[in-house]
């Protein structure tokens, strides 16, 4: 009873603002449409078009590619940053300051930051001029902007913190006595890391991974802007269809995306059941 009462606000918000739109979405995904209007109906054409098109498969391939690379990099970087904050930095105050320091860039609108990537990474940008000035390159590096490299770079920029926070949270809950015991038993740094810290951080890693994968799989802005519109993602495909008022096609695509990502999340939860370890 008490649990229900506590969970009720969450359930209510999600029912009103998620279940209703979701139900509409599923219904619309079976509608027919032409250039001008939706035709309420029950047709599977939209799904046939989603699965029957090579574009879908190629786009999913590319999206998985972005998600995989971004996940690996954010995990690697995020884990060590979290480790630094949890085990090297001492004192809550100092940690808070460092966290805030990492958050401030995100309080400038993303749209403005996205514009700023052009003068940062472009042919005449800060990065290229620094590289040329330091004598590392003598030609501007073109791949820095409007490329897959740029897309991944922006994702890492945007989402590493989403990995850091949950991992940091679980690291802070690691009982320091366990580490001391391991060290006393003669375990070196890497052994402690592998056999003590890493297993205990699994829930944090899982949650961070869910954040990053979900964010990348659904993205439609970063991919377009950083690839200069030359690369596709599932989110972008859906947003294109929405902008042309092809709601049924977008809805069908979204339902498929939803199922795919839910399966990915379920797989992560199979490896690490974050709820069982509550």
């Amino acid at each position, binding site marked *: 009873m008490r649990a229900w009462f*506590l*969970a009720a606000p969450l359930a209510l918000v999600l029912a009103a*603002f*998620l279940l209703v739109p979701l139900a509409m979405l599923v219904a619309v995904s079976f509608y027919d449409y032409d250039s001008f209007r939706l035709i309420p109906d029950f047709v599977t054409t939209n799904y046939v078009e989603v699965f029957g098109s090579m574009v879908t498969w190629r786009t999913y391939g590319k999206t998985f590619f972005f998600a995989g690379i971004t996940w690996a990099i954010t995990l690697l970087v995020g884990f060590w940053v979290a480790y630094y904050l949890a085990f090297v930095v001492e004192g809550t105050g100092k940690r*808070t300051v460092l966290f805030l320091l990492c958050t401030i860039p995100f309080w400038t*609108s*993303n749209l403005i930051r996205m514009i700023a990537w052009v003068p940062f990474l472009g042919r005449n940008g800060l990065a290229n001029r620094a590289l040329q000035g330091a004598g590392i390159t003598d030609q501007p590096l073109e791949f820095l902007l409007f490329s897959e490299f740029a897309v991944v770079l922006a994702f890492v920029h945007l989402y590493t913190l989403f990995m850091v926070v949950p991992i940091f949270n679980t690291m802070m809950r690691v009982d320091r006595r366990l580490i001391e015991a391991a060290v006393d038993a003669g375990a070196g740094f890497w052994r402690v890391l592998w056999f003590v810290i890493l297993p205990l951080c699994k829930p944090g890693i899982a949650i961070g991974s869910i954040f990053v994968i*979900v964010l990348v799989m659904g993205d*439609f802005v970063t991919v377009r802007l950083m690839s200069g519109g030359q690369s596709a993602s599932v989110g972008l495909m859906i947003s294109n269809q929405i902008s042309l008022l092809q709601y049924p096609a977008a809805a069908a695509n979204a339902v498929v995306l939803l199922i795919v990502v839910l399966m990915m999340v379920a797989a992560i939860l199979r490896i690490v059941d974050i*709820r069982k370890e509550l």
Partner: protein
Amino acid sequence: MPGRLGRGLLTALFVAFVLFLYGPTLTIVVLSFQGPDGGLTFPMNGVSLHWFRRLFERQAVGDFGASITRSLALAAMVTLATVVISLAAGMAFRRRFVGSAALFYLTITSLILPSILVGLGIGLAFNQAEIDTHWWGSALGAQLTWTLPFGLLIMLAVFNRFDGAWEEAARDLGATSWQSFAHVVLPIVAPSVIGIALFGFTLSFDEFARTMLTAGTDNTLPLEILGMTTTVTTPVLYALGTASTLVSFLAIGLALALLWRARRQRA
């Protein structure tokens, strides 16, 4: 624990990470001092404070003041709601209850569903029900479907291995469940609650995909900026970025100074 070399390497990594995070910000700061004839990209066309002045004048298109006010108010509401709702739900999820798995997966779904479709769906639903969309109504709900999953998942990570013995001790001493929550649980999870608030604020303040079709007549700041990019934009956008970074630094510095003073007085 890492040795000296390890610590040094980790510090270097962290510094590099922070520098990377500030890359675009740095570009924004530099370019916000563009001359009056300068644009949003290099080369610099002179150096001036022109765009900071223009920030406070009427823009050709759009209105910063009104949209910032709306965005701040909305972000404050979202932050508060996110903290309260996810804290409550986090407490609930400490035990399994009927429907908990369903609610958990619903929350995950909320995170996964492409933002533009959530916005479109809510907009359509409101339109069908003939309820007007407003930034303080439908957009608030739309943003909560975005911030709550983050709040809940962080809360789950926090209550993960949370020692129930402390609460039992409190109850044995005769504390009501509210007292044990307020005096035992809350202080322990407080840092994470601040974390959720920070997440909620940051996510809401910058959200536009879900807000686009749910904000009704008035624009929030990201929507206003998006609208402004449909015509000639100027480094006034960068001036806004620089100013908001500066204000953030000042606000945080001030908060820390007050905290430090309070702590010293207590000591």
